């Protein structure tokens, strides 16, 4: 027996529509969560990632016993959370003797694990440890620059993979129109050695250079850390192919007020708002338009003399 279930309220309907697969996707949400044990460093990292991704991230604060992303059967909870929160990137922190300060960054496709990268964190410096102007601090939701330095990102497979994951994690929303005045932060990732990546977050300072292009200056605002790649799992080829599909056609916007006519061709309706002539500001106040002083006097006679009398009385 099957039953047709439709949302009862319009709000619920909108929420479901938001979660439906789209032709063109603009941004992914991030789920931040941790295992049974986390160190203070890891806690700080997770909260700071959450702060950086605010607006498109969800942070879970409870311990999760059953999440072991690399083991079979350990991903069920993760997939369930991904479904529940509609997040497709997750950052999972755990701390153990074998793998201290462990961070697993992964992506999901259709709420199933797509790929995984495991990194260990070293030399972590939090946002608070950097002394800098508050003016410089990046705003929520602004699009960051991402810079990758080092040949390691091209030659070493793990780092190549990490690079892709980091782009997906950091790049923010895919936008068509960008406000140049809103650019205010950048991430710099450098492959220091074959398995270590130095990641730092910088604020941008734009200086005049005499040309249209301003001179860029980076000021470290944190967090900064070293990521040591541990394990990673690439997506399998067929899944990758499936996930990389894009559509040529763009989502059509409904055309309104335009009608095709066999005889007249295309014609449309234009709505013009009511002209509010009374409220219109005149370009210059000509003499004739001005109120005459006498008129104003007559009009205001009722209340003005009273104040004058008072003045006289006091004087």
């Amino acid at each position: 027996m099957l039953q047709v279930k439709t949302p009862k309220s319009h709000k619920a309907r909108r929420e479901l529509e938001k979660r439906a697969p789209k032709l063109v996707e603009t941004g992914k949400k991030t789920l931040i969560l941790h295992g049974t044990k986390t160190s203070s460093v890891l806690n700080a990292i997770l909260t700071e990632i959450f702060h950086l991704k605010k607006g498109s991230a969800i942070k879970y604060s409870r311990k999760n016993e059953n999440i072991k992303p690399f083991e079979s059967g350990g991903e069920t909870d993760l997939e369930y959370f991904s479904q529940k929160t509609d997040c497709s990137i997750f950052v999972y922190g755990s701390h153990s003797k074998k793998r201290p300060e462990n961070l697993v960054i992964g992506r999901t496709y259709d709420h199933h694990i797509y790929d995984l990268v495991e990194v260990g964190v070293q030399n972590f410096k939090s946002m608070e440890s950097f002394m800098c102007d508050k003016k410089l601090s990046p705003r929520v939701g602004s699009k960051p620059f991402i810079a990758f330095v080092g040949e390691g990102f091209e030659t070493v497979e793990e780092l190549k993979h990490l690079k892709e994951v980091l782009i997906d994690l950091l790049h923010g929303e895919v936008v068509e129109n960008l406000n140049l005045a809103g650019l205010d932060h950048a991430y710099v990732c450098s492959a220091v050695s074959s398995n270590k990546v130095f990641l730092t977050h910088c604020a941008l300072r734009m200086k005049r250079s005499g040309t249209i292009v301003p001179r860029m200056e980076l000021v470290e605002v944190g967090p900064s850390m070293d990521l040591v790649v541990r394990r990673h799992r690439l997506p399998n080829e067929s899944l990758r192919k499936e996930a990389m599909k894009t559509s040529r056609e763009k989502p059509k916007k409904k055309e309104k007020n335009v009608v095709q006519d066999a005889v007249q061709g295309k014609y449309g309706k234009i709505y013009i708002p009511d002209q509010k002539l009374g409220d219109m500001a005149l370009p210059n106040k000509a003499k004739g338009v001005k109120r005459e002083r006498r008129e104003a006097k007559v009009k205001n006679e009722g209340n003005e003399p009273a104040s004058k009398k008072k003045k006289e009385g006091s004087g």
Partner: protein
Amino acid sequence: MTLPMEMETQRQFQVDLGNLMAFNPHHSFPPQPSSRDELVAECLQKGTELVQAIADRLFNLPSTEDVDGPLVKLPSPTTRLPREKHLPKPKPPTKWELFAQKKGIKNRKKDKIAYDEQTGSWKRTYGYDHANDEDNVPIIEAKMTDEPGEDPFAKRRENKKKKIEKQEKNQLKNLKQAAKVGGLPSHVQLAATTLPITGSQAATKKVNKDELGNVAGLAATATASGGKFDKKLPGEKPPKHEGKYRKFLPVAEGTGIGSQEKEQTQRVLNKLISENSHEILNVNKAITMYNVKKEKKRSNLKGKASPTPSKLKPQNKSLKKSSKKGSFSKGKAKGN
């Protein structure tokens, strides 16, 4: 000298304007960095170069002035990232749509309001109080084919109900088909309901919280210890009837207690006896006995009238006697 150098390096950078991302694949860090600060400084310097490279391209894009600042139209990203969800699948055509296509039937739009002949006014075409509603007629003219004793109004109502049911069934069928392909509209979910128990049509009723709790309580106390030593589940309430139902009284007589058990059993016995005291006579049995006697008497009379062998006579008598005795003894037993 520096300018061409810069140009050269910029060409070597991989810049993805859509993601505001740049990559310098040519720089390699020394294997043993002298100090942490130096390394960070080097990274930042290289990063600045890259950011500058992105900015060079970005600020040279055609821009439009806005109140908040210059707006730039970004090209689409070149690094391809995996999708979050699969591409939306189109909804398969319904059975009617297929049929209409085959027959060349086209949708035509109906007006939202229609002229109602009954009232002579304009009413909505569909919905409550709509125009030309056949089910909302005060009088239905009788026809020759009408069966007597049938309510034509009720019949119409039933027909409408059936029509709606059929439509719902068709709709569900189409939705199932769509769900199979994955082209279900985003706001519709097909949820499985509980299956009916085999042999019955109705689906099983959903068990409510209290009923479930009662069953769980029964199950929990169905051990030898009455669930006393079992591990409690989180949120489990203690059983309603804690302890024993039956109380055993002391058999031996103590001072002041008296023979409570004897009293108790006697009370029960007295009650039973007093209840049945008025019907010592079992009426049913008495009637059957009376009937049997009558029958036998009649047969005896017949036997006397007809010449019967004398051998049977004493046998008959003996039987009578035995039956009488049995009945007496039984009656006595009842009385006690």
